[in-house]
């Protein structure tokens, strides 16, 4: 007669994927590649920020971009003239996951002749919810919040802001025309993640790009020297 018994497991269902992400992140660290996961609501200005970043650096660093969308390669078309780019299309999934990022990374590496990158910039699917729960092997998680959104948004998306190292307030040129308060938005985010770095940009006019790019550069330097070990935030 068959009996029943209990097997104790105590394991995260996503443990294997997390471990893979951690290993890939270590590999990037060894290669001196700073990986950035850029997140936001749809239309907050992620692609524009990447375009402006690429223009600002103007070839000074070896950059690669992976851009995720449900459909089309419109964003990749915008970025490709400025920086080596590969489009990831999910066909329906509302967030990027590591396996798809790996596939795109392989193709991107081939495109650039397997040269090591200084920066790998990953533009996630426009979504403030699900991407917060998926490690893409990034060092830095950055959330973009535009001035046409509510300055009380951070509290509504706690996991997103809790797990982000930095926030970029985009479309700063519209501030005179919208009720958005930069101070309020930053304060709301700092209730959730006190150490979150905050930047203001207008990608169309290249305002605030220097501070933003310097932040990326300094972060990379600290990673390369080992002064800082960048890991996912809880």
């Amino acid at each position: 007669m068959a009996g029943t018994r209990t097997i104790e497991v105590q394991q995260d269902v996503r443990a294997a994927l997390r471990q893979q992400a951690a290993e890939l992140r270590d590999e990037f660290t060894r290669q001196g590649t700073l990986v950035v996961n850029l997140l936001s609501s749809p239309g907050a200005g992620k692609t524009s920020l990447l375009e402006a970043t690429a223009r600002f650096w103007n070839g000074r660093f070896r950059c690669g971009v992976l851009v995720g969308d449900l459909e089309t390669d419109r964003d990749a078309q915008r970025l490709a003239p400025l920086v080596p780019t590969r489009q990831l299309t999910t066909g329906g999934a509302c967030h990027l996951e590591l396996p798809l990022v790996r596939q795109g990374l392989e193709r991107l590496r081939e495109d650039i002749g397997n040269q090591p990158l200084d920066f790998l910039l990953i533009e996630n699917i426009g979504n403030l919810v699900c991407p917060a729960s998926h490690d893409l092997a990034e060092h830095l998680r950055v959330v973009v919040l535009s001035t046409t959104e509510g300055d009380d948004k951070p509290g509504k998306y706690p996991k997103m802001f809790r797990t982000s190292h930095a926030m970029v307030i985009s479309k700063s040129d519209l501030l005179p025309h919208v009720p958005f308060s930069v101070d309020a938005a930053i304060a709301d985010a700092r209730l959730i993640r006190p150490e979150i770095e905050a930047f203001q940009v207008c990608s169309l006019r290249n305002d605030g790009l220097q501070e933003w790019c310097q932040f990326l550069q300094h972060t990379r330097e600290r990673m390369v020297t080992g002064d800082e070990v960048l890991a996912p935030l809880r």
Partner: protein
Amino acid sequence: MHERSLVVALLRQAESIADAHGAVGIEAIRVELGPLSGVDSTLVRLAFEQETRGTRHDGVNLVLDEIPISGVCRGCGMNWTSAEVRFSCPSCRSQAIQITGGDEFRLLELQVTDDTVEHEAAEGDD
């Protein structure tokens, strides 16, 4: 939508563990999730029902524990829990806290049925 892929991953994980322990079948799967897991318990239950129906796991009991957030305060040292999402210490209000739980979807235990028929016959008395 990804509750479905999570449930698929859960079932694979359970199968793999059950196999490794020489178990014949799974009777129950106990999981826990918290407010910061990014996972919805209702959708998990729904996806579980859909993924197991008509398969060999049809009838497996999913036991789902909803757990609170747990954290430790670097200010006053307190270990705390909260059913609601919060990022400050309930005791001293410090924001110097670390989240220690409630942000994962964890497989806790499996209840499995053993393939013990042949072994019992071979061993005779217990």
